[in-house]
């Protein structure tokens, strides 16, 4: 039984989110929206944690990958929606499969972008990646903004009328899969390579670990889930525009990862949920929000760089990771 613990946990999470989803109709729309946002934040934070926490790189472009995924998924739903409906039927299952196709397409598009960006910059040391991903984030925004307003991507106004398919099942199901993939990947024998790259890249390299390969893998997987998160976001809000995926969106995710503790999955999940809820209550103090966040970043790095809930907190004594 112990061997399949992770798989059982994943199935249980999927089942529970499916059951809860059946009752979501009775929930207040406002709270449902916050709950869905929290689920998406968990996906974004856990996937960024794979790159920034476990592998020790520093990506600042998570919102860029999110944008690629959001637009990819939205375009599939809007352009191919009718065709998919005729093929798959308009039953609940048919719609579900169509949404799944849209999400996976968005994720794959983001993963492809991640690969294109990652290969040149990941051969080098970490700080270049920060700039390249930040630049990528900007380029995606500029390119989307300069598309024709009546074209597929909708230009600066973005896309509207995206079906609101994201439910608790989809948001938390995807979050569960994301957590499952990241934790099992890191926990596997092969996955120790990620931690080795983080702890000492030169030593890892001389032990025969292909450091670039590990870094690119982490980056592409992270981008994929960011894309899926973006797709869910698009189908939650119903409308997206390029401005919604700016640098600050990336910073939000980075703050979640750093507060929770880089490399600590439990910490990052909690931070994602807490910060999403806090953001909702701090709406009245919008102009101070970023000042508080940036001060938090500085103070955390000086006082407690391992985060509030570091990974070491959850380990059994005598085991090192």
């Amino acid at each position, binding site marked *: 039984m112990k061997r399949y613990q992770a798989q059982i946990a994943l199935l249980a999470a999927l089942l529970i989110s499916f059951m809860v989803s059946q009752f979501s109709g009775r929930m207040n729309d406002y709270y449902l929206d916050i709950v869905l946002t929290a689920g998406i934040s968990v996906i974004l934070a856990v996937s960024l944690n794979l790159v920034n926490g476990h592998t*020790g790189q*520093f990506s*600042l472009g998570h919102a860029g990958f999110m944008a690629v995924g959001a637009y990819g998924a939205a375009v599939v739903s809007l352009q191919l929606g009718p065709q998919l409906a005729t093929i798959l039927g308009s039953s609940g299952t048919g719609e579900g499969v169509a949404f799944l196709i849209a999400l996976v397409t968005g994720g794959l598009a983001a993963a492809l972008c991640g690969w294109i*960006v990652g290969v*040149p*910059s990941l*051969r*080098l*040391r*970490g*700080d*270049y990646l*920060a*700039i*390249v991903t*930040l*630049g*990528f984030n*900007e*380029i995606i925004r*500029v*390119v989307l*903004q*300069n598309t024709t307003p009546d074209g597929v991507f909708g230009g600066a106004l973005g896309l509207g009328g995206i079906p609101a398919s994201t439910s608790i099942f989809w948001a938390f199901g995807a979050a569960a899969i994301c957590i499952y993939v990241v934790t099992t990947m890191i926990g596997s024998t092969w996955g120790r390579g990620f931690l080795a790259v983080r702890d000492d890249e*030169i*030593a890892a390299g001389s032990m025969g670990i292909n450091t670039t390969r590990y870094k690119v893998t982490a980056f592409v997987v992270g981008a994929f889930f960011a894309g899926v998160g973006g797709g869910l976001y698009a189908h939650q809000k119903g409308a997206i525009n390029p401005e919604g995926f700016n*640098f600050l969106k990336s*910073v939000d995710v*980075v703050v979640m990862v*750093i507060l929770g503790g880089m490399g600590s999955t439990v910490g990052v999940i909690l931070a994602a949920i807490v910060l999403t809820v806090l953001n909702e209550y701090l709406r009245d103090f919008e*102009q*101070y929000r*970023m*000042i508080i*966040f*940036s*001060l*938090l*970043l*500085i103070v955390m*790095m*000086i006082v407690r*760089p391992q985060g509030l809930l570091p990974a070491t907190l959850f380990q059994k004594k005598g085991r090192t990771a």
Partner: protein
Amino acid sequence: MEQFLQQLLNGLFLGSIYALIALGYTMVYGVLRFINFAHGDVFMLGAFSGLYLNKWLGPALAPFHWSLSLTVILVLSMALCAALGILIEFLAYRPLRNRPRLNVLITAIGVSLLIEYTGQLVFGATQQPFPALIPADNIALTGNLAVTNTQMIVFVTVVVLLVALRYIVMSTRMGLAMRALSLNPTASALMGVNNSVVISFTFGLGSALAAAGGILYASLYPSVEPFMGIIPGLKAFIAAVLGGIGNIPGAALGGLIIGVTETLVGGYSSAIGLPTGYKDGVAFVILILILLFKPSGLLGKTEREKV
């Protein structure tokens, strides 16, 4: 042909400002081996201090020639930003000395955001017009090539600052200490260099150049807002990487190349069928290309990481 030369000239003026900012990145990288993300925001503060100094000192300086008031405002805001740069280093970066690089990088991003959003709170989020510190006038060169007075003054100021910087780095004791520190921090400390003082000085010097860049940039494109530093800052950083990060002449060269390429792409984008909005993306394409083919930069030396 004439249009091409005109674009080339415009690019040169823009590039000279990028060069000025890029020097700050490259010098800090040289002594501390990290990217000072907040550099672009010091650039923004330089422009704003120019704006406010002109507001406060303008009446007092009005009787004098504009070149005197320009010099006074330039020097004062350079001094102000130099002090600020030293303060940032002291409060945010010094406690992190000898910590993992990633932590310092995150702090730098934090400092950058802190300056931007505090700026938004203090200065307001809207764009403000920048006063004409240099009277507008066209200087006609041969044929139809036109250069504005502002462009010329900007270029001359940049050249003067670059010469001054070269003197400081190559011919003073402090410059010698800076070069020693960037070569090997441990050895320079053993030779009696006070590394902390040199690092503070480098931050001050870089921030002063960024402030000058801010005022000159705002003179060319006369509007200022709290987020104006992000994009020029990024482009200047790319210029520093292009020239070889840590290499001072390289940063100047990289700045010119980025400025010229960007202006040319902006000028001919309609001819090659691109929206002009893409001009901001050019620098990032250059960055990816240089990282792919020559990561050490045009003038940089390949550095082997040792255990």
